[in-house]
């Protein structure tokens, strides 16, 4: 299991949900488990659905067709582009920070 980040962009629920959905559509419960496994962050159900609501409104994710209590969500094209940009920006910052921390 990954080490749990306490603060910072790596614990942002929206980013975590987008990253989870990058591997394919998932319903809420599956997202929680996946996020806990790859990021070590346990999102509460309220936090998860607050973030899902925002992402749906921003059209970054969309519910898959089909009804029922276990409705899966998928990443939209806009969501995939946004996630790629965000992760690339994070990678640049992380690479620079780590390089500067390395003893000369």
């Amino acid at each position, binding site marked *: 299991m990954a080490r749990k980040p306490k603060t910072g962009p790596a614990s942002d629920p929206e980013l975590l949900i987008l990253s989870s959905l990058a591997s394919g559509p998932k319903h809420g*419960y599956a997202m929680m488990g996946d996020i806990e496994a790859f990021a070590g962050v346990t999102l509460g*159900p*309220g*936090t998860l659905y607050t973030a899902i*609501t925002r992402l749906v409104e921003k059209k970054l994710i969309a519910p898959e067709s089909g009804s029922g*209590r276990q409705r899966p969500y998928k990443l939209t094209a806009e969501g995939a582009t946004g996630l790629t940009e965000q992760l690339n920006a994070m990678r640049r910052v992380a690479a620079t920070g780590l390089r500067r921390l390395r003893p000369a």
Partner: protein
Amino acid sequence: MKTWIIRTLLRLYPANWRREYGGELTHMLLARPLTENIVGDVFLSALWQRFRAAEISTLVGLGMLLVMLNGFVWNIVAPPPYGSEASMLLQNLWGSNLYVLLLVGCGLWTHLRRRGKLDQSGLAAVKISFLAGIPVMLAGALMLSGVLGVIVLGPGDIPTTFHQHGFTYTYYDATLRSCWIRVQDPAGPLKAVLSTTCPPAPLGVLLAPLFTLPASWLWGMVGGLLGRWIARRRRPVSA
């Protein structure tokens, strides 16, 4: 018990949100142990969704309610001296320019957001006034029931504290009007004496916020008219 807690938590969410996500959230909550952390998390999330779904008039009205309630409590606990800005503004809030601007602003915002009928702007302003008036009506009800006393403070008078007078509201009166008040003398019969200051009548305090509602409606409508004018200027001219 668990089902009851989940149902109660779900009821805290706005109806629209519940229709969209309620089933999924219920399923998730039923599938795992309901710890204090999860209840707190869902409770805060529900409050946030309520806040996001609320009309601007509801939020402004609740803000005003808190301002008034805060002023009411502070007036009882530690009344400010006569003439201080805080005391006069809170007592005469309905007559202040700031309040009128707030109502006009809310009417304008409501019209620009909804693009609906003008009376929606009026109703939004009425909602603000009603919510802001709740602490005043509460004070009136407490006065009527004899729980809350009133002390009239004129220019130069020193306010008394909660410690000295208990549960008493300090009313600031600059006019020093004369009126007859009934005084119960323990040794004699009930008699009327001429007093230089008149405390507000409890029923008057209880009903006063309701009398401000028509004026609030008009100010909201003014804001709505302003919003309509702005919307027309913004709209592109069709060929």
